[in-house]
């Protein structure tokens, strides 16, 4: 099997399949659905060095365009 690993700065990724920010929570939420070991990586939602309360609802609203944006609700 071909070696698809690559590096970004000091980070080494085993393959280029990296879930984009926002679609994968913080990574662990996807554990019931997929084998996380198969992924090259996960880009988390925004995180801070110290826990923060997060933003109150409403966190999503209807849009006339089909572009959606989720306000971050919980910080880790």
């Amino acid at each position: 099997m071909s070696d698809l690993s690559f590096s970004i700065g000091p980070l080494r990724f085993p393959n280029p399949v990296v879930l984009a920010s926002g679609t994968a929570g913080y990574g662990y939420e996807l554990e019931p659905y997929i084998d996380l070991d198969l992924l090259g990586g996960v880009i988390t939602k925004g995180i801070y060095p110290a826990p923060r309360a997060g933003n109150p609802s409403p966190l999503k609203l209807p849009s006339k365009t089909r572009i959606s944006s989720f306000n971050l609700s919980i910080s880790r």
Partner: protein
Amino acid sequence: METMDKKGYTPLEIVDKREWREDFFSLFFHSPLLTSSLRSGHFLMVRDPDAPPLLSRPFSMGRLFHDEGVFELFFQVVGKGTESMARKRVGDTLSVLGPLGNPFPLEKPGRVLLIAGGRGISPFLSALPVLAESKRDYSLLYGAKTARTLLFRPFLADFPVSYRTDDGSFGQRGLVVDGLSREVDLVFACGPEKMLERVALFYKDLPTEVYLSLEERMGCGTGICYGCARKVRTDRGVEMVRVCEEGPVFEASRVVWDE
């Protein structure tokens, strides 16, 4: 063989449809597996391939017809997603994911009061037969704006129900929160946010255990998108938690209400 778990949506055919008054609808789906695994308080994410919104919508299920393996999805048209669902016909298909969330703890012992406001009747349509079967002391307090929106009355005739309408057109005149009883051990409530808040306030200093089903806009329904978070008291203080994963049923004492 029918399979259904958190890993994927299952296309289900609409086997029956009922149009109620005032933009309320029921769609009926044949799924023995879902029908047998759904509990009052669970919710389902429903994806409509013809609806303009990109995201699925969360719905509580209504009645469960165990003999036929059929469950009911009861909803009110409130936007484009539900408008599209209301146009569906028998034979059309919607994709369904569930059961999701944590149900009401109906198994807890004690005298039970169910409190439903408007379309908040939905989860109790499956709870009532369970409570009746258990031979417990229970009743339902069900309120709506008018007699026209006080739905399911023929079905509810088999159960102990007190009705209230805002205009007095059926049952007692007034809000459900005007008819709350202290003589109960367990309260399960579903309905408008203000009603839930007043229920929580009424029982705040009483020994009654109160559980509320909270409604929140959701993106995924499975804890990944974090789009349904709200303030709840936890062991660590007040935190934002996901209604889909940690709820939608919460102990009333844990819910933080907006000032």
